[in-house]
């Protein structure tokens, strides 16, 4: 696999939390690569290190040891502002709790990363509108989050995650707050995005949700215990 096609390259990554005298080894040496265009689910029991891994992949934290290349860039040693720049340009986040700004319209929520990228107000509005159309919310541009259903809110969050055209879309329990019908719709959207070439990594508890991915990485006690493609459907 050549490096241009590799979105994520994780080698011998460990993460140890130090709480006073207690050391918690959340990740005990994890190695894998994810190619561009892959759709991966990360599964595992509670406390197995899923969130820790997602935080590292999302450049919200750095590994204690090991190396992490994102889109060819070694991010394991970067400082705060450099990590922020990577998050801005290379990553899109979708959270379980949507995390939309409550007082702000859908289009402005989606435009937020463009604001931090220093893009002018007109271009922000145009790009954000286009992204909202892509997730099927072209008629909800000026709605506030409270005026949208859970599924619609999560679509706004996905549009926001995609607005900077990131290399990787990271989703932590994206269906955790949604009912099963809405979850199915969202998974259909993820499938479409992946079919369109998006690299997607999501954490989930739900085998049904995970089955939409094309590869599942299973964690236990901070180690990868299983890593295989899902049965083609």
């Amino acid at each position, binding site marked *: 696999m050549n490096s241009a096609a590799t979105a994520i390259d994780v080698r011998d990554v460990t993460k140890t939390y130090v709480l006073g005298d207690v050391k918690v080894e959340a990740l005990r040496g994890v190695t894998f690569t994810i190619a561009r265009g892959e759709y991966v689910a990360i599964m595992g029991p509670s406390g197995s290190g899923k969130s820790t891994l997602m*935080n590292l992949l*999302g450049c*919200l*934290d750095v590994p204690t040891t090991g190396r992490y290349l994102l889109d060819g860039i070694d991010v394991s040693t970067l400082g*705060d*502002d450099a990590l*922020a*720049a990577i*998050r*801005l*340009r290379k*990553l899109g*986040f979708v*959270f379980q709790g949507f*995390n939309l*700004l409550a*007082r702000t319209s859908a289009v402005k929520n989606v435009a*937020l*990363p463009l*604001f*931090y*990228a*220093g893009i002018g*107000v007109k271009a922000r509005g145009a790009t954000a509108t286009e992204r909202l159309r892509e997730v099927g919310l072209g008629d909800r541009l000026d709605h506030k989050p409270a005026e949208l259903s859970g599924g619609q809110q999560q679509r706004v969050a996905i549009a*926001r*995650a995609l607005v*900077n055209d990131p290399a990787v879309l990271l989703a932590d329990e994206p269906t955790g707050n949604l009912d099963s019908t809405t979850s199915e719709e969202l998974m259909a959207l993820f499938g479409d995005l992946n079919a369109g070439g998006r690299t997607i990594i999501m954490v989930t508890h739900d085998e049904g949700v995970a089955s939409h991915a094309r590869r599942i990485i299973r964690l236990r006690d901070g180690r990868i215990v299983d890593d295989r493609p899902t049965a083609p459907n």
Partner: protein
Amino acid sequence: MNLSAYIAEAFAVLVANRVRSILTALGLVIGVTAVIAIQVLGASMSGAVGGVLGSLSERTFFVVPNQRQADFTRAAIRLEDLQRLRFDVPNVIDAIPGGQTVREARIGHSRRRLGVGAQSDERFASETPLIAGRKLTPEDIALARHVCVISGEAAQKLQITGAQVGSSLRVGDHRYTIVGILDRSRAGRLPSLANFDISIPYTLYEREYARGRAIIAARVLVDDTSKIAQTESDTLAWLAALKKGRVEYQTFDRKSFSKAVDGIFAGVTLVVGLIGAVSLVVAGIGILNIMLVSVAERTREIGLRKAIGATRFQILLQFFIEALALSAFGCTVGLVLGVLIGALVNDLAIVKLSGIVAPIPWLRSIAIATGFATIVTLVFGTYPAWRAATLDPIEALRYE
């Protein structure tokens, strides 16, 4: 960097939390109002007092016994002493009794108790202009003529008009011909130091009011204003020799009066200004508090903003501008109130009472209040913004 977006966002947040924003800004409103109003009123009042002093001739000074000595009875200056002072001390043209004597004045059907004071010719007299007649002349003085000049205020009380120049005014047992009527003095109703209700030639005053009586204060006319300080010390030395050092005197002239008055107002302005400054600091602590609350409430929002790529500086800017917006709001309201209160009290009270329109340092007052409020905001607004900027995004996103 898109500052306008930050500013719009900050005001949107403040409007969304309008009640607490207003309550927080209130401290700043009070502080800024107080600082401005105090400076304006200080300038206005010291201007008014300065105007009163302006009615004193620059060529005169007062000699009075030092207030802090045990035995006042020996302090009195006798008439003969004043006459000798004229000859013995260089530069002294004249020395006349200060102070006034209250008598009943009558003309037509009007009668009023008014102050009669010794006055010399125009060189001594205040700068208050005449509305009719003339001031006292050297001949009036030399001949101790039974003439008087009436102050504008006294003329009003006695209902004397310009047409009555030349009429006779009864003052106690005496009769004086009115030779002039002054305009209302610039000193207005504030106590006046040398604008007597009824001014008569000092030679006449000495004969009719001062003979055989102790003169407590004297006014001295100097022929050259540049020598006034020297003449004052010469006079004090002369008096010390005369009284063989048993009595202490002191002198005041327009300059030393002004200095003393300015000192008092500077002191009052400083103290009250400090109270205003303290209230601004308290207001700053209010801003600190509300901004910390705002940061805590929006921890998740901050986590989200950082996760999608906001830098620490961008977060810092957001919360810093929010504190600035809060402060700008309080400051603006405070400026308007301070200027309004200052202008109202100045126009309705001080100018009306004193008749003096003093120059008010509006810009300086506003600049000082705004500057201080800005410093307070910078000091107290930075910490919450820094707290927000340095939040760990993972922790912040997990925050409930």
